[in-house]
């Protein structure tokens, strides 16, 4: 189901109330004109699955954090932040996989510059 960013937490709380207590994955997809974030939730006892999709404008990506609803969302949101550049509001987010990242941009976006200069001490010296 496609919903809007404002209704995200409500919908997820509703789903959790209906029994979808298990979060499988939060995936991000970069369609060139928009960024979709998909929340896959599952009802373990009745073996049903549901997908919640939120479409975001690439220049205005701010999402509320769903950690209060599903605790498993913590690490998935951290990778969303560092791989897509999506800001997560509501709590302190640190990078997960690429900790000492001094390149520019978000890797999984389609407009990520391959081979863009990755600044290190040596490269700064070489340029100067």
């Amino acid at each position, binding site marked *: 189901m496609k919903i809007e960013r404002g209704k995200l937490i409500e919908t997820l709380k509703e789903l959790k109330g209906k029994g979808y207590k298990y979060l499988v994955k939060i*995936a991000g997809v970069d369609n060139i004109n928009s960024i979709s974030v998909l929340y896959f939730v599952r009802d373990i006892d009745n073996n049903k699955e549901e997908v919640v999709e939120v479409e975001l404008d690439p220049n205005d990506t701010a999402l509320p954090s769903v950690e209060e609803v599903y605790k498993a969302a913590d690490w998935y949101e951290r990778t969303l932040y560092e791989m897509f550049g999506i800001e997560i509001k509501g709590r302190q987010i640190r990078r997960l996989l690429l900790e000492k990242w001094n390149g520019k941009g978000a890797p999984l976006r389609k407009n990520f510059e391959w081979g863009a200069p990755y600044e290190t001490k040596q490269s700064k010296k070489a340029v100067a």
Partner: protein
Amino acid sequence: MTTKINIGPIHPSTHGVLRLVVELDGDTIVGVEPHIGFLHRGVEKLAENRMYMQNIGYMEKIDYVAPMAYDDAYVAAVEEAMGVEVKERAKYIRTILLELQRIASHLLWLGTMANDLGQFYTLFMWTFRDRDKILRLLQEHAGARMFYLNMRPGGVVRDLPPDFEENTLQVLDYIEKRITEYEHYLESNQVFIERTKGIGVLSREMAIELGATGPVLRGSGVNYDTRSNKPYYAYSELGFRPQVMFAGDSFARYKVRMLEMKESIRMVREAFKKIPEGDAVGMPVRLIMPQAKNKIVTVNRETPRGEAFIYMIADKERPYRLSIRTPSFINLSLINEIAKGSRLADLFAILGSLDLVMADVDL
């Protein structure tokens, strides 16, 4: 007054590159913070720039202990995107090979867990010897001991060799005896029991809330296994039963894996009796240029570590987006919750019972 110690990325335990910042209050753990990413290779981004068959190599190296599981998961996603059906005989062959892979992976886990508990590599050497016999079998079929590349859309790359069944049944008899011996050896050791029972308890609610998967989830009493809840290949015909223990501690997770090994042995024997004759060879490599029929594909597979979930958006030649959820990633994030309140000495025992592979974590 809490102190933070750093269990650095290089350590003599056999876990791979994992950095843990442990917050200690005396000898009790108050918080554990894993820092990962030392083995991050950007598989998801690389997959968008490679053609479908070129990606199989990347997928295998996600989990280097049980590579066939990801091989199979990805090829299943490609099959579904192209609308290709798996041949009957190939379903059974894939089941047999996956279950053999599972036994081999659990044997390696057993050796490293015993090593973490202080057993001086003895059980490690013995289980590697047994795992070697299975890798030999798989080599006869696929040509390689570790990175098989033997799955093709619609089937496998070649049929099983003629004496595969005989050899496998011999190896399975041998392994069954060894597993019983290892179980007896560990469970009659009072020190092992004291170091695993009651250590690292994960309750049922927390397991579901935090997203645990695989034997970690089943060790806490949740009866969810992808092979029985979303059956694929020949599992429903072989009468697969998920193994569940209810205590939620390290001993329960250990026991779930031992029982899974025995269940795998039983299923392989049964599969050999029921396997149909016919053709099992999948599409050869050069034919794979899928005009994608189903654009958005979801695949759930049960790797030895837990459930792998692939979400693929298929384009003409390459995947547009390949999103993988690996089980070790989410199992590692449980460590903060599980290890609170235990002693520092238990930390590696708990990590051993979670069965992590760092390449699986970092993807």
